[in-house]
């Protein structure tokens, strides 16, 4: 059978931001779906979003309520969400209560009640909330299976896309016939992790089309449910062809060390201990981008955007104007129970909004702290996904990471993430001639030559300034306690650092 002979399944918008990407573009029309999860997991809200996104006066939605939350209370709370459009009631969305039939009659009568309303209304969407309470009365397995089978057949024949909502436990997955009949199975979970609550969504089953596997985080805000795909969408974003462009820091000597700058689309790690100037370097990187017409994003976790911009101004870098001009966004991400996917979503939104070419993550330690404890466990994996996705759309990422200064080793990161980065610039303190001075070295540049020089630098009111030529008179510089090649001591007077950027 050729492609054009195959039936085309229309995909309906779910009305849930981020969920369409997870389900491969939308929910299959006429599918029979289950939304399962514990109380408070967002099942009803998700169903309402779908209903409000799809119901019209011509093809309305029928929302059957059974026992449990009354329609009045449901509407009282649901209308607080921004997606709720009261104008859709009652012509496009009709609420029908089936409690009496469920309480007083058998499943056959309940089915008859549903059939009667569906035939009368010709709905595009049917929701039964909660289906679990509808079938709670004791009945044989065969009776239940027959009811579900007939209900599914009838609703599909009437060209309705259906959601049955139920409070199911995961161990019921194997034996309950409802899960066999369903075309789509959406499982919502909320689990406490230390003091945070993490909500996750899984598409356990979706007939007819691919969906993104795994657990996706979601959040319930005043806009309803918002889902964050763990792979940032099924199709992802097409990777731009590799660019040969080099992005400069605007620090001529450093740019020379980097062979002209970092390659566009690279992930750069700037590692160093506290006060070595990581944030200063990152700020110069973003400011140079703006100077060259490359909009940028700075994701900060340890200080507020205003403070970040003010500190930049002490280096002569104006971050206020580009923010006003839409060339720079400083994102402050610090709610302490973030998932990487949410962070990604915020960053991706900002990237798309201003067409950002450069992104600074300052710092990875702050980023990790902002995450919910459960996500810290797989921080490396999450970071990998994030970097892959962002560099895939051509963004050049510079991340700063604090490393503990050691005089016996030369670590690049406390996260063992150097494999995730294309380029590494290492900053460190070194004891020379009775002074604590700073050196810089380019450790790695994937796909390009770079200088092997160890260079001394200072932080001045112009930012990072590389001094003189490479340090040739000392042995063991990267140990932090070098020895002068001729063994002589320093005769120089002590010099003073400007102190600018020492908070970094």
């Amino acid at each position, binding site marked *: 059978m050729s492609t054009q002979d195959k039936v085309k399944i229309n995909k309906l918008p779910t009305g849930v931001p981020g969920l369409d990407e997870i389900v491969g573009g939308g929910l299959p029309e006429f599918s029979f779906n289950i939304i399962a999860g514990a109380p408070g997991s967002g099942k009803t809200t998700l169903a309402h979003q779908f209903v409000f996104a799809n119901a019209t006066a011509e093809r309305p939605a029928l929302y059957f*309520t059974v026992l449990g939350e*009354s*329609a*009045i*209370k449901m*509407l*009282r709370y649901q*209308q607080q969400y921004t997606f709720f459009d*009261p*104008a859709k*009631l*009652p*012509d496009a969305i009709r*609420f*029908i*209560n*089936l*409690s*009496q039939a469920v309480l007083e009659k058998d499943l056959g009568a309940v089915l008859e009640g549903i059939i009667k309303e569906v035939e009368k209304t010709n709905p595009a969407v049917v929701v039964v909330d909660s289906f679990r309470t509808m079938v709670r009365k004791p009945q044989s397995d065969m009776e239940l299976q027959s009811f579900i089978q007939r209900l599914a057949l009838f609703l599909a024949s009437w060209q309705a896309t259906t959601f049955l909502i139920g409070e199911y436990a995961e161990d019921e997955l194997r034996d309950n016939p409802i899960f066999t009949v369903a075309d789509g199975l959406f499982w919502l979970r909320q689990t406490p992790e230390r003091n945070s609550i993490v909500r996750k969504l899984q598409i356990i089953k979706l007939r007819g089309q691919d969906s993104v596997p795994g657990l996706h985080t979601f959040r319930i805000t005043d806009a309803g449910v918002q889902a964050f795909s763990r792979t940032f969408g099924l199709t992802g974003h097409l990777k731009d062809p590799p660019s040969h462009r080099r992005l400069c820091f605007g620090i001529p000597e450093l740019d020379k060390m980097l062979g002209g700058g970092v390659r566009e689309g690279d992930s750069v790690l700037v590692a160093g201990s506290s006060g070595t100037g990581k944030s200063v370097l990152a700020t110069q990187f973003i400011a140079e981008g703006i100077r060259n017409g490359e909009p940028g994003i700075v994701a900060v976790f340890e200080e507020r955007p205003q403070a970040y911009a003010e500190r930049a101004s002490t280096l002569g870098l104006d971050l206020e104007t580009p923010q006003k001009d839409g060339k720079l966004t400083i994102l402050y991400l610090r709610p302490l129970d973030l998932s990487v996917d949410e962070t990604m979503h915020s960053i991706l939104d900002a990237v798309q909004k201003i067409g950002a070419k450069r992104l600074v993550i300052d710092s990875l330690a702050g980023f990790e702290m902002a995450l919910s404890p459960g996500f810290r466990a797989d921080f490396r994996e999450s970071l990998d996904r994030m970097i892959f996705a962002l560099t895939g759309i051509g963004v050049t990422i510079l991340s700063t990471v604090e490393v503990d200064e050691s005089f016996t080793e030369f670590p690049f990161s406390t996260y063992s993430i150097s494999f995730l980065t294309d380029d590494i610039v290492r900053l460190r303190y070194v004891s020379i001639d009775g002074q604590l001075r700073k050196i810089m070295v380019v450790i790695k540049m994937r796909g390009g030559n770079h200088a092997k020089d160890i260079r001394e630098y200072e932080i001045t009111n112009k930012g990072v300034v590389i001094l003189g030529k490479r340090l040739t008179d000392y042995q063991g510089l990267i140990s932090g306690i070098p020895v002068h090649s001729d063994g002589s001591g320093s005769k120089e007077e002590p010099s003073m650092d400007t102190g600018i950027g020492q908070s970094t």
Partner: protein
Amino acid sequence: MKAAPEMRDLAHRLLTYEAGAGKSFEPMGSPTLCVYEKLRKSLCEFVGVAGFQSLATRALTLARSEVVSLSAARVTADGSIQGLGEIETQIDMDKDRAGDGGDILIARLLGLLRIFIGEALTLSLLRSAWPGEVFDDRNSENGRKA
């Protein structure tokens, strides 16, 4: 506390409409019963019989605080109301309180709906049972927006 004036106005419009709709209320016995039954039908579908019965009982209790003679009325298990016809006849004979019993009971019921689901949804529900002209401000006794 008395029934909100806006709800009394809205109730009055519904009752006036039914009273003016010729003999449509006659099988019920009064415009109040006719409005009540239309609300019952519409709301039972929406919130279930038990849900409507609870709301109606609460509305009747609140209305009794304003019209003592409503004490003789009661809401049955299926949500219908008994004893309202007889009370309305008595009230009509009392010139001082003419028509108030029905107005207030309906106003209280509508007031509860407004409290729970808001004015927009309450009006949406009513619009499915009554024609739009009933809610036109020009038909309001005092021009107040419902």
